């Protein structure tokens, strides 16, 4: 349909375009299929899968904020076994590369998940490691412990599979560029930047948090400038593949991330407001390329002009 070539290549994988979805923000039920042609997406990304089923957090779990929302879903999912049994056959029918997002409480969980998913290589094309969910108790692990655990998780997954690995990070973890460098050093192929930012909203009538978990992860337009900054900084410093995530609502947002170098674009919260968001963003990117005489998306990707910088 499009005269513009949007083909995106990362580590031997070829995506028909750079659009994927944010983990936990996209559906595979018929309700969603009414709006989205999965075979037009560049890649599919699953909700976080854990080794064992998780029931999730108490209610209320979500609340609206200015230009965004807080969520503390608590990684509710049916666990690895159910995923392998019911979801893999479903995804096998869709001709779109599948990125499976995984999380664990300990390195052993990551290893177990990676080994199991490695066996599904016909369907699973990459792993995204959720190393940054703000809504799950860490057992009071201190900052250094947290970093050690992250590196340990990446290492065991690297040993378990040769599938491309994306480490999903949040600025909550400290200096993002530094941690990004470390996770790449221990074997990650790329990064997903950023996960939600931990935030809070107060019910002024009851004088309690509007979320049962007290804090939740902030997503949506409110976090986009933060996400753009980190994609820019990490691309400048390391040049490794990056899946951009944070407040991509429109094609204009997506193009900002492309200009600072993002390889894939994860549309997240936007799906809640408009289930057709991915499709509309895709069309908008093509339109922008046509309007700017861009024939291949790589001409746009990373085209940030320092020399054009307005600075009086």
């Amino acid at each position, binding site marked *: 349909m499009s005269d513009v070539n949007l083909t995106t290549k990362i580590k031997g994988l070829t995506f028909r375009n750079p659009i994927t979805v944010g983990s936990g923000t996209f559906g595979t039920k018929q*309700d969603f299929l009414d709006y989205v042609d999965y075979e037009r997406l560049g890649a599919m990304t699953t909700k976080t899968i854990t080794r064992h089923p998780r*029931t999730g957090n108490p209610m*209320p*779990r*979500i609340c*609206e*904020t200015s230009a965004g929302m807080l969520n503390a879903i608590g990684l*509710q999912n049916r666990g690895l076994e159910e995923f392998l049994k019911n979801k893999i056959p479903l995804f096998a029918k869709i001709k779109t590369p599948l990125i499976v997002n995984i999380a664990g409480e300990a390195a052993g969980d990551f290893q177990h998940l990676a080994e199991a998913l490695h066996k599904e290589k016909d369907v699973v094309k990459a792993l995204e490691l959720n190393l940054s969910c703000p809504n799950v108790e860490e057992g009071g692990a201190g900052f250094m412990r947290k970093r050690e655990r992250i590196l340990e998780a990446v290492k065991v997954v690297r040993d378990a599979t040769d599938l491309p690995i994306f480490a999903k990070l949040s600025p909550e973890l400290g200096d993002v560029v530094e941690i990004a460098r470390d996770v790449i050093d221990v074997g990650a192929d790329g990064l997903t930047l950023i996960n939600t930012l931990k935030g809070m909203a107060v019910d002024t009538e009851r004088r309690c948090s509007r979320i049962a978990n007290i804090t939740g992860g902030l997503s949506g337009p409110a976090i986009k400038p933060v996400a753009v900054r980190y994609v820019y900084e990490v691309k400048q410093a390391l040049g490794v593949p990056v899946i951009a995530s944070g407040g991509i609502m429109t094609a204009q947002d997506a193009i900002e991330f492309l200009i600072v170098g993002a390889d894939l674009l994860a549309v997240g919260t936007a799906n*809640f*407001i408009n289930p057709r968001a991915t499709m509309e963003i895709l069309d908008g990117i093509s339109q922008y390329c046509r309007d700017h005489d861009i024939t291949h998306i790589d001409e746009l990707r990373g085209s940030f002009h320092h020399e054009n910088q307005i600075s009086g």
Partner: protein
Amino acid sequence: MADEVVKILDNRKVNEKYYKLSFCSHEIARGAQPGQFLHIQINPTLDPFWRRPFSFYRVDGDEIEILYEILGHGTAMLAQKQAGEVLKVMGPLGKPFRKAVKPKKRICVAGGVGLPPLLYLAECEDVDFFLIGAKSRSEVMPDSELEHIKGTVMYSTNDGSYGVKGYVTVLLEQILKEERPEDVFIQTCGPMVMMQAVRDLAEARYIKGEASVDETMACGLGVCLGCMVKTHAGWLPSCTEGPVFDFSQLQGSLICQT
């Protein structure tokens, strides 16, 4: 199901509490059932950020009506809209109320923003008793909005300015004194506290029924897992597995879900 930009035909105040808004959509009206809802994007500028859920209040051919109350930022903006302005509307969503309850008698118990879906149900099906809880007389619906109800309409008001004084459960208790539990079926929609009280009365008497829950919703499509209700089958999204749930599905209190 469809997601369409529609033009507002009419948007006006009904009484001290409610506003009524209408628009046309063939795709959305087709197949709409009482208890199902619409997910409305009030402004394209993302303020309010999320869509807002509203029940079908009336469907006549392609014309759809909602009845709403100003409760906050979004509904206040909705009330400002003029005929000719547009909204983005998705629907019909969710599971409807049970239609066939015969030979049992149908008792509807409504309060606040739970009134619209039950009035629509009463337009499509026979209702024996329609109980409405309101704060005071100023919230009472004009007769023109209630005349289609075939059964007995009864009001309770907190201040006693109209109907029986007290909560709507006072009316329900009165009726249940006269009826055998196995002869009635209760359908309720309103504030969670009210529905829990209705459920308590029903369950103490082994009466069957349904509640249409009111959970904050983001996506409306079963994706965000934000609108969950605790059931015997685990946490379920009320936007796709509800909003109408059988009393027997629900686990624990509706008021505090942990």
